[in-house]
């Protein structure tokens, strides 16, 4: 019984962490500027892709329903191949799915804000990487990669980063 209760609370812990990360993903869209060519018009949605088995997708779907960012709705997608990954504006690569980032990178120039949650992801050249320090969710920013791909990350966001690579 005690073991069950323990596992229950562990589960809740994971959920809270991913709810927080989902909120961060949503907020990133407010501080990031994609080249205008990535959108058909002023009201085209921002697509957030999630790869890997992860509860973040559900949390994110709850969060973005009915909300607009600078007049754009948000949609959540689960890309199955490189083609689909290239279509999203923001791609969340769950831990253990870092190979997908490599796939995306090797597919040519893509204007996708990549967000991950592992050291390996950062080493592979992911743009924003979640780190958990002191039980708090923080993030690192790789400005160089982002700028190389034509994605502008607001100084407001950069100043909140735990670490910035230029």
């Amino acid at each position, binding site marked *: 019984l005690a073991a069950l209760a323990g596992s229950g609370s562990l589960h809740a812990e994971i959920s809270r962490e991913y709810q927080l990360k989902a909120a961060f993903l949503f907020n990133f869209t*407010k501080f990031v500027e994609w080249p205008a060519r990535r959108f058909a018009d002023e009201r085209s949605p921002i697509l957030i892709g999630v790869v890997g088995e992860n509860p973040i997708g559900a949390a994110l779907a709850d969060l973005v329903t009915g909300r*607009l960012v600078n007049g754009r709705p948000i949609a959540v997608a689960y890309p199955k191949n490189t083609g689909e990954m290239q279509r999203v504006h923001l791609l969340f690569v769950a831990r253990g799915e870092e190979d997908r980032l490599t796939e995306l990178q090797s597919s040519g120039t893509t204007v996708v804000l990549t967000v991950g949650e592992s050291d390996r992801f950062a080493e592979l050249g992911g743009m924003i990487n979640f780190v958990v320090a002191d039980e708090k969710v923080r993030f690192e920013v790789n400005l160089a990669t982002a700028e190389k791909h034509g994605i502008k990350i607001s100084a407001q966001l950069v100043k909140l980063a735990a670490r910035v690579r230029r």
Partner: protein
Amino acid sequence: MMPRSAMRHFREFPIRRKLTLITVAISGVALLLACGVFAWQEQANFRRTMARDLGVLANIFADNVASGLAFNDPASMEQTLRTLAANPRITGACVYDSGGTIVARYDRDAARTRFAFPGREPDGQRFLNDRLETFRTVMLAGEPIGAILVASDLSELHERAWRYLTNVGMLLVGCSLAAWLLAWRLQKIISGPIVRLAETAALVAVGRNYAVRAVKTTHDEVGALIDGFNEMLTQIQVRDAELEAARDQLERRVEERTRELERENADRRRAESALRESQALYHSLVEQMSAGVFCKDREGRYIFVNSWFSRLTRTPVEQFIGRTGAETAEIQRRGRATDEAEASQFAADAARDHDLIMRTGQRLESQERYFDPEGRVIHLHVVKSPVFDPDGTIVGSQGVLLDITELKRAQDEAAREHARFKFIFDAVPVGLTWMKVGAPDTRIVNAAFAHITGVPLERCRELELFRAATHPEDQARQDMLHARLSAGETDHYECEKRYLRPDGSYCWAALSVRVFRDVEDGSIEEIATLVDIDERRRSEAKLAHSLSVLHATLESTVDGILVADLHGRVTVFNRKFAEMWRVPLAVLEEGNDEKVLAIGTAQLKNPPAFFEKVKHLYAQPDAESFDVLEFADGRMFERYSQPQRIDGVSVGRVWCFRDITERRRAEAELELTHRQLLLASRQAGMAEVATGVLHNVGNVLNSVNVSTILIADLVRLSKIDRVAKLRDLLAQHRHALGAFFDSDPRGKQVIGYLETLAGHLENERNDTLREIESLRKNVEHIKDIVAMQQSYAKVSGVAEKIAVADLVEDAIRMNAGALTRHDISLVRDYRARPTVTVDKHKVLQILVNLIRNAKYACDEAGRIDKQMIVRVAAENSRVRISVVDNGVGIPEANLARIFQHGFTTRKHGHGFGLHSGALAAKELGGALTAHSDGPGRGATFTLELGIESHTSTS
């Protein structure tokens, strides 16, 4: 506005000062107004600018904290807010999340004071006392995500206001000074001529000099005024001369007239004062009288009533004045009898009386009845008389009403008092007589007196009759006593004397005579009482007789008797008492109760107890007691005490003593005999138990005997000798055993024979062992029986706690052999299993006895289904052990005698089994009872014991 007093002062100022002041005031007010408007406008502008600046600042910071708020990073937001320190006017700022909670704050004076951060407000700006607050919603990507507050202090605003005030003050002082200097110089143009005219007018007013004239210098309104003033002075001079002449004449005339008037006035005042004094005296007299006074004019109209009259009629004085009696009848009715007719009758009477007085001038007196304000009847004496004028003509009538209620009441009371006295005097059973000495005609005598003396009531004034009725033997004595009274040696005497009856008998009476001398008129009254004491005299004689009988009785009884009153004092005793208690007669006759008690107490075995008892009984006058007193020398008295009562009330205590020493001795001997008998019976009982035990042992010994014989037989008839025969056979063929076994026909059978023999020998051994086991068991049984007997043979008399069931079982076991022998089926019916604390031996003795009796009863009945039930039942802390048999039963006649000593129905019975059983049961605090429905119907014996602990009393 100037205060009123300042205004008054201002009016008294000279004109030149007024002019100066007015000028300065006007210029000052104008200046103040102008400065005020400018200052207000300046301040409003500044506030607007300040609010705008702060609004811009708030907007910038709202943008700057948006990311921190979005990513819930308070550190980042606070870092941003800290840049506000560059602006020293900003006192505090904070960031609210979308829920209104403060997530980051900046406080300029955090080190000294704490900024009181308000809750979130809608967007906008608020000027508070000491600060300006600006709220802005933080928007991110078109979405509100929180709010920011920036608060600025207002010190700069206040500093500016203060600076303005100082400048305006200084300006005002400077301007006023300049205005004053100018006004002071210029006012002289207007004030100069007016001042001079005023000086001239003052000269006229002070010096009454109407010859002076003012000098005209200007031709304006002041010039015209000076002309008019001069003209007025001229006219005054003319008028003054005329007035002077007229006044001198008038003064003389007025003086004369005044003197005349003063004389007249003094005369009149004296007369009026005298009149007032007399009127006041009359009025106060009439008002203070506790009598009603009224006065009517010719026509019968009231012209005066006093307050007493007004109170009596409960009508204000002014209601009477000017009205006739008839007119006030309605009013009067309230004060008099209640009904209308009576009221009009009063009015008519009053009118008639008035007419009569007016006509004849005669004085009328009558008595009238009124009700006072409390509704009590009051009686009035009314006197009505005419009123004459100085010429002797009747001009009206007057009346005086005197309250005579008290007098009336006193008269009535006296009459009643007399009636009461008369009744008592006539009805009292004591003879009473009263007279004035030397005047026999005044004598009154009541019926009792006449009855006792035998002198008829109507002849009570013939004094010699009383003397004649006196018994001749008492005459001389009474004459002597009466002579002393008459001589004035004493004022009273009492004597008991006899009065003769016509039939020659006489009756006793107690006479008491007393005289009262009137100091004023020297008359003497004599009062005598006479009480019939004949009955008492006869009772006394009877009492004397009764007493003599009582004394004779007291002296002839064998008991010692003492009677004491409630205080323990000896009132009656007899000689026997003195004898028994060895108290000298002299001490008793002396009535020295303490000494009697001391002598008695000294002889006793336990004086304090005796003393307590005596004290206790005296403290409870209604208690009776009976006890036995033991004397130190071995004597014993029965003491019986009973209250002495008169009409049910205790007045003393009767003590009765009887010497029971001899009786007690006899009883003690009886008790001893009884105890010896009891012991004998118990020993006998034990013998019976022993017999039972021996019988049991004998029974078992029989079995032992049988077993022994059997074993002996078994051994004797043993097949062991066959082995010997076989041995001999084998010995014969020792040298050719092989041939013997192979060829000899007997040799061939040896093996079969050996097998059979072995079987026999084995059986033999088993039988022998069985018998030996039986023998051992029987010996054990004997050991048990002997051990049990030993355990019961122990010293008895010690109470121990034991289960009733165990006791019963032991008793049954001790009879077990007999029961089996006589084929009696035993039924155990234990309905309870209580524990008792008893002398086990005694209970066992009783139970063994009961079981044995039941056995005999069953035996005697000779029936086949002999049955005995042993029952144990508990109820209300008592245990009942019943032994029920279906034997011969007990005839009703025998039931009563069954526990008597020596009663038995058995041929060999001792007749004390049940008797000692019953005694033992009693000693145990229990009871032994028997019940039977009659001969042949069985019997039930029940031993009842208390479950609570009971110690043997023996």
